[in-house]
């Protein structure tokens, strides 16, 4: 049995005290331990931002790449090691602004990767500019007269892309979040977990309190069927007085790996290295 503490990292944590990221970190450790995965069996890939520092605060394999480029790097790492668990993480700017195109296309590929988006509705690391999920009218460094761009609903986009697992978590509810993360990792296919993550320093609107007053646990609603895409779309757009958390949409389908690997195949990185002979290949052109 793996304990959550097996994932502890000695690296100095650079987050602000009270930041929602701590809740995500804890929930992730609990989820991984619950799945009985050893640190060396997991690869985390992240971008750049406050959220994207998370792999350093865990003991796991880690590729901390460029801002916005989490998905492609994770895809490459997964294809080389498809027998490993690959988890990607980053902020809302990382995922939906700089990484917006990769986010959309990752869902098209449906690799067995879990994507945790720490959605604080702001740019934390660069000290408070609007993100794609920032609410209308919000005053930020780059929107001193209020933001005018319509906030994106990443969940609705995910449902529109027919993403195979779409969920929302809340960093203030570690228990529920760790269950969602565990379900996402267990799900075979691309899983999006958009996590409401209070930024205590730069987001003075969407605070713990603000979220707490609104979130409810959809997973407890037995009547809700996450397999219904149209209902999921409506649910994904629910935002305001009530904000659902839990599994919004779920769909079984072949993963990308199925198109290239047979069940018995080892990870590419651990297969014997036996490339074909160049002369043989060249002879086909004789």
């Amino acid at each position, binding site marked *: 049995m793996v304990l959550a503490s097996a994932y502890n990292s000695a690296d100095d944590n650079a987050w602000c005290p009270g930041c929602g990221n701590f809740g995500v970190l804890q929930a992730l450790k609990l989820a991984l331990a619950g799945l009985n995965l050893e640190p060396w069996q997991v690869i985390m890939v992240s971008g750049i931002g406050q959220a994207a520092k998370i792999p350093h605060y865990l003991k796991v394999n880690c590729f901390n790449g460029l801002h916005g480029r989490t998905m*492609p*790097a994770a895809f*490459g790492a*997964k294809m*080389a090691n498809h027998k490993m668990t690959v988890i990607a993480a980053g902020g809302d700017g990382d995922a939906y602004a700089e990484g917006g195109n990769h986010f959309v296309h990752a869902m098209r590929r449906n690799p067995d990767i879990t994507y945790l988006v720490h959605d604080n509705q702001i740019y934390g690391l660069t000290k408070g500019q609007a993100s794609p999920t920032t609410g209308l009218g919000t005053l930020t460094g780059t929107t001193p007269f209020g933001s005018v761009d319509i906030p994106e609903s990443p969940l609705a986009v995910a449902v529109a892309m027919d993403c195979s697992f779409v969920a929302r978590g809340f960093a203030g509810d570690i228990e529920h979040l760790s269950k969602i993360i565990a379900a996402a990792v267990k799900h075979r296919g691309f899983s999006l977990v958009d996590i409401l993550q209070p930024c205590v320093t730069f987001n003075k609107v969407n605070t713990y309190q603000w979220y707490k007053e609104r979130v409810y646990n959809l997973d407890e609603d037995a009547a809700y069927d996450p397999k219904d895409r149209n209902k999921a779309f409506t649910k994904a757009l629910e935002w305001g007085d009530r904000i659902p958390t839990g599994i919004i949409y779920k769909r079984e389908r072949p993963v990308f790996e199925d198109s290239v690997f047979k069940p018995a195949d080892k990870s590419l990185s651990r297969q014997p290295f036996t490339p074909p002979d*160049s002369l043989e290949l*060249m002879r086909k052109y004789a």
Partner: protein
Amino acid sequence: MTKDITVGISGAAGMGMQSISFTLAKSFLRAGYNVFVWQDVMSRIRGGNNTSMIRISTSPVNSLKEDFDVLVALDLLAIKRNALKVKAGGFLIYDGEKQRAEEPKAGWISVPFEKLAAEAGGDKIMMNSVATGAVLSLLGAEVVKECEGVITELFSKKGETVISGNLRALKSGIAAVTPGVSGKFMLAPTLKINSKNKALINGSEALGLGAVSAGLKFYSGYPMSPATSIMEYVAAKAREYGIVLEQAEDEIAAINMAIGAGYGGVRAMTCTSGGGFALMIEGVSLAGMTETPVVIGISQRPGPATGFPTRTEQGDLNMVLFAGHGDFARVVLAPATAADGPLIMSRAFNLAEKYQVPVFVLSDQYYNDSSFSVDLAEVRVEPVNRGGVLAEFPGSYNYKRYDLSAGRVSPRLIPGAKDQVVYADSDEHTEEGHITESAELRVQMVDKRAGKIAEIVPDMEQPFYFGSENPETVLVSWGSSFGAVKEAADLLNASGKPAGILHFTNIWPLPEIKFKFNESAVKSFICAENNYSGQFADLLEKNTKLRFSGRILRYDGHPLTAEYIVGGLEG
């Protein structure tokens, strides 16, 4: 008897010029000749005017002539745009019934393509075989057997009727050229000895093949001419050789995927052209920072921006040399001919893993889209050197990805090793791969990454030298310009002007250059490049003892030719 002939096949996109030129080239190849084919095409799918330029020679040939001995014009525009490029004494083959506009000139031979095709097989499309036959006839028709073989192979999947129709069309094309003219360009015979040991392969295929045989396991790319064909080669082989290939949503994804796979422990590559590469530059810097091996193929075409997308140029060297913010080591290689492809690719993957750096393979439209005759006996690769990548590591969670005690290249562990984790980081980092704020570590890590270049230098190969031992003129060139520059030197030597060619395929870092000729004989070093400013000449002048008294530059979208170079020397 002719020893060297240039044939053009010109028409609108979609008319099948490439299949005629392929059939001709392959036939002569099998008959023991050396052949070379370039595609001069417009950026459109149908219509316009494209020309396949084929050179057939008794000696090795990797370049073109400026004009044609024989031109097949498949439509009117082909005549209009290219008739003047037919040499005096040469021939223009066209369909006098369909393509009348001007008065036919001397040397114009009308062959009623469509009519003969219809008669031979009932299908207009067989006019290509008629045209092929007409060319064969002019060239002495000694290779009819080989040509029939090629046609039979080509249409093997289409069934007997199509094959026999085309064979008849070929014959009627041969017959359509009047006896007085046929055989005018009779080729000198070759020793057919090597004919089975020769391949006709284009540059893209040679690079794709080189990568696959170097153990490529992951390819991500976004289509962009002229690089797309490398991707399509790998795509076709992916299943057979267990390669994961994915078309990325853009070039940024492509390079980040490849770097992710490189981190993941497999040999990974992405290919693109200049505009797509511009988008990859942050990724190059990521490979430099994380010390992740990755091979990046850049198939150059004329810029800036979308530029002249189907034509050729060697104009991206500067961008590649200085791509990425911050200082870190990189390697740049550039194949000279298709025969070079496998060697360059095997070196690229070896150097990438040995030094944990990005390695660039620079080719161009001329290289990628040209079919070269390759002597199979010449095909070489470097033995695999994976640079001591580790599958496991002793101890428990004590591995350091950027271990400084190991020198500039730290042992690279593949993730998934039991009881170890591998941190790679795009921030300045500690030996463990965690973000650091230490100025001291910063300096050590910059020295590690940028200092690798000194370790790579001894691994770089000297330029080739061909020519006189006491050259008065030394032509300096790189990459795909080899064929034209070599031929130019041969011409100079033949005309009594001692010359040589110093040719680079190992572009960066540059080794200390040792001359294999008598330096004191040299009156002028001349660089010949397919770009506007002489980017490689600049590089050499900055980093070696070479100083140029002249630069022969071409940037009209066409490749260098021996004539252009010799003309430039004289002019």
